[in-house]
């Protein structure tokens, strides 16, 4: 699955770049996305679930345990992640929005892990300066990643709304033009009738 996703990602990147240069290539891009819709749906679900679970396990140190201690906390954390995801998603069910919201939720989880690590480090009596710097860097990176992910989600929603407004305006202009044309033909008919009658 990993290699097929890698192939998909490489092909998608090249097609997107081509489409950005040449509008005609959008057709190929659209066809490619339609062809791989199922793969995308499956892999993204497995991936996000896998990443989220790995972060939670890491955060609670579950990968080092042989007993079942900590699994309850992991479940609580996973629920919290699901709640954040639901809040970010709202009523939107568009695939791209769903993906962007999932990314933002995973980034939120990653930030929680960085914060937890930072707090654990500060509970220690003696900390090597490198570890402290690493924890600080992780926290900053986590915050930036989460803010960027939320920004991308908000921008996508905004651009979609803008597209909807532009399309609605175009439809309205077309309808007005049609109406004006019909009025003109009606007036011509009336004129013809009055001339003949």
């Amino acid at each position, binding site marked *: 699955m990993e290699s097929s*996703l890698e192939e*998909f*990602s490489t092909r*998608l*990147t090249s*097609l*997107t770049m081509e*489409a*950005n240069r040449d*509008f005609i290539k*959008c057709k190929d*891009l*659209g066809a490619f*996305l339609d062809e791989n819709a199922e793969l*995308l749906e499956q892999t993204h679900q497995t*991936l*996000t679930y*896998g*990443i989220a679970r*790995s*972060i939670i396990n*890491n955060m609670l*140190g579950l*990968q*080092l345990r042989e007993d079942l201690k900590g699994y309850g906390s992991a479940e609580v954390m996973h629920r919290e992640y699901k709640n954040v995801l639901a809040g970010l998603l709202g009523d939107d069910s568009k695939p*791209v929005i769903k*993906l*962007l919201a999932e*990314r933002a939720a*995973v*980034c939120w989880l*990653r930030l929680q*892990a960085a914060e937890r*690590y930072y707090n*654990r*480090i500060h509970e*220690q*009596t003696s900390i090597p300066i490198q*570890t402290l710097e*690493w924890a600080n860097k*992780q926290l900053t990176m986590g915050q930036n*990643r989460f803010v960027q*992910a939320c920004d*991308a989600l908000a*921008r*996508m929603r905004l*651009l*979609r709304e*803008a*597209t909807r407004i*532009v399309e609605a305006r175009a439809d309205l202009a077309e309808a007005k033009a049609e109406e004006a044309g019909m009025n003109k033909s009606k007036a011509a008919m009336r004129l013809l009738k009055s001339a003949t009658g």
Partner: protein
Amino acid sequence: MGIESRHDGKLYYYRKRREGDRVVSEYVGGGVVADLEQKRAEIALARREAEREQLKAAKMSMAEIDKALNEFSHTIDTLMAAELLLNGYHQHKRQWRRRR
């Protein structure tokens, strides 16, 4: 560390602490007290080592998770770009503009 032999040939426990550039020895006790204190110090040391190991392991597996997250994030960014291109936008100098 901690248990020291004195002139009378008996063993006593001394706790060490740093004060500026000096190491200060603080008398704790001898006999049973020294043994207990020694055990307590060993347990505390083992706990600190274990915590340090755990943090090291967490750091290493976090690096792997970050790698997967970055790859996933890159794919999502590309998908977002693809969606915008299909909706009539194009990117110019990192800015999304609607095609005229």
